[in-house]
């Protein structure tokens, strides 16, 4: 099933059956769903604060916090000094005081000045104090590539945080999850790194009805987003759509791929993946991040152990290369796409 010619593009988006839309549902992009989710969280609990660079009048460079400062005031939506350690470090202190700070990091490449506070305080304070001190801080991080940007604006550093005990790491891949997961992250008493697939923020193709009266999925649960039998694709954030596209293409050639959206990268909810692999015997893990010592490595390590006798081929990975993110003119090569995913499926099938 090797695709000798690259597919023209990813327009063949696979949408799950549109549910009957109840009156409480709105048709939203991921960006707008996040905005509404944040608004809802702020309405529900006046201890919820937003901190970040340009989150006020500007509404953030991606407009995810649009209108919030206007409605909730400057004491709840803070345009902070330009210092990420300051953003995380003061958020920790605010949390100790009883607030629920939601930090925005402008682009994932700028989270690193805050890494020390994340590692040394945010992740460990609860453990250090044996649960006496809670730090319910959410750090929102727009991440991933494909937006034609300059350096530091397209990376996928989530694996670093998955390696740090004490943190939880999640990512949403559609508007419904965006709306609910951000609220669940805010109400969670754990510090959560919330990775947002930035190139999908304003994707009209992904617009979906969000039923604000529905009961959401658990935050740290993975989900089968397409059922299949031949092989399993596991992915999260921006690569979910890539995998769904690949599955559609494969289906056109008569091969049904199962696609699992991890949603939570730490802790991993791999039970559905194990189930799936026991049926399909083949797994491909797909992520934009470099593969070395990463979340995809971890998935492989756990699947080969739990599904040792089920695997008919080694678990393969389709990821960003182990290089810095290249100049964006080259990102189409760097980023996993439908063709590379299908190529890996072929390799797994032929093993």
């Amino acid at each position, binding site marked *: 099933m090797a695709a000798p010619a690259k597919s023209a593009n990813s327009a063949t988006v696979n949408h799950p059956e549109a549910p009957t839309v109840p009156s409480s549902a709105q048709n939203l992009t991921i960006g707008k769903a996040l905005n509404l989710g944040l608004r809802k969280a702020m309405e529900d609990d006046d201890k919820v604060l937003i901190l970040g660079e340009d989150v006020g009048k500007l509404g953030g460079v991606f407009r995810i916090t649009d209108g919030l400062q206007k409605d909730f005031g400057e004491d709840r939506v803070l345009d902070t000094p330009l210092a990420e*350690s300051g953003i995380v470090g003061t958020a920790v202190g605010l949390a100790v005081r009883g607030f629920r700070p939601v930090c925005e990091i402008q682009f994932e490449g700028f989270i690193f000045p805050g890494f020390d*506070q994340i590692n040394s305080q945010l992740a460990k304070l609860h453990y250090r104090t*044996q649960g006496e001190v809670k730090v319910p801080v959410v750090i929102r991080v727009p991440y991933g590539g494909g937006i034609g940007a300059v350096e530091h604006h397209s990376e996928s550093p989530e694996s670093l945080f998955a390696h740090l005990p004490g943190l939880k790491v999640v990512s949403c891949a559609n508007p419904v999850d965006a709306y609910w997961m951000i609220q669940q992250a805010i109400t969670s008493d754990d510090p959560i790194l919330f990775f947002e697939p930035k190139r999908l923020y304003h994707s009209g193709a992904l617009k979906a009805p969000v039923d604000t009266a529905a009961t959401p999925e658990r935050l740290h649960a993975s989900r089968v987003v397409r059922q299949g039998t031949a092989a399993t694709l596991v992915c999260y954030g921006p690569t979910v759509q890539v995998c769904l596209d690949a599955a559609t293409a494969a289906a056109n050639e008569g091969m049904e791929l199962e696609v699992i959206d991890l949603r939570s990268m730490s802790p991993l909810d791999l039970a559905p993946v194990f189930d799936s692999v026991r049926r399909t015997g083949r797994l491909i893990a797909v992520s934009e991040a470099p593969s070395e010592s990463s979340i995809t490595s971890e998935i492989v390590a756990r699947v080969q152990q739990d599904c040792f006798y089920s695997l008919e081929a080694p678990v393969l990975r389709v990821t960003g290369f182990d290089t810095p993110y290249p100049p964006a003119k080259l990102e189409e090569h760097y980023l996993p796409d439908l063709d590379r995913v299908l190529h890996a499926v072929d390799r797994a099938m032929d093993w």
Partner: protein
Amino acid sequence: MSSPEQWAQPDQGADAAATAGQPSAEQVIAGLRATTEGGADLIQLLTPEGERVASPIFDPYVADVDNESLRELYRDLVIVRRADREANAMQRQGQLGIWVPLLGQEAAQIGSGRALRPKDMAFPSYREHGVGYARGVDFKELLGIFRCSDQGQWDFAKHRFHPYTIVIGNQVLNACGYAMGQKFEGKVGNQENDGDNEATICYFGDGATSQGDVHEGFVWAAVYDAPLVFFCQNNQWAISEPTERQSRLPLYQRARGYGFPGMRVDGNDVLGCLAVTRWALDACRNGNGPVLIEAFTYRMDAHTTTDDPTRYRLSDELEAWKLKDPIERVRVHLTRNGGADADFFAEVDKAADDFAAELRDFCFNMPDPPPERIFSNVYAEPSPVLDAQREEFLSYLDGFATAGGER
């Protein structure tokens, strides 16, 4: 004598270079690096000889300190020193993994710690056992950290005394966020009801002033008018590095560049530290924060029990500072003014001995934590992955027990 007004137009650290358009390299080095002399700006209410120096500005802040209060401060100083020495000794005896002595810094810690009201919040570094004591933390509760059986176990909310922070500078931003929270909650600047006001104090060392986090704390606190007292104990050394490895100017002058008050107080003068900290906390509670206090003091012992100061400093230096001992001057003052007699001093010594004995007894009997503690409270909400790890490990351990192994 310095005054709070001065922060607005502070003197130069040294005059040598002050008028030189292009100071020579020697001038720069000799003139600007007056980081290790107390200097003319040092605020002092009680001299090393035990003389009370009048201060129109700060006297009102210690007007309530009569002989009785002074005796209590003396008692605090002695007990804290005694406890520190006992812990140091217990480390030598293998009861603690390490100890971080505060010897010499008692006045800075008790003076500032006693300036706090119950509602105020304190963020320590790792050497603030005296502040913890002043906050009502049982000294015993500090030992677990150094015995390596816990990482701090007092009631943080009740005592308003945050866990120790070991990564230099981190706590400054955490304290700043906390203080911002006090302000957001309207606990600052209530003119009718001062009892409703709160402030935060944050402790750090001379070495810490170089860290980015401390700077960011200064920026944030200034921008948000946070009710935060930055309390820098300049004990002259960051392990083996003297203050001139961190700064050309006296550290209290750092505040100049941010637009808030910076003051240097004799850190070995408990009365001075009390007064200046009260002044600063008041400013914060009134909405005029932040304030930087540099308590000019000296680390009379090693950095920690694993350190060997003879490699980097001469004993002369210590001898000179012994003359400025923070406890001796209070004793002399009390004695000279008839504020206390020999019985009192004997009683305090006895109380300190008892305190130490109790500490010792406690320490020798501290239980080790159980293995499952490794897995506790990593998260506030469950993580099935970690739960599985715990179960697997505990049943592995059980295997030894069942097999009658040595555990």
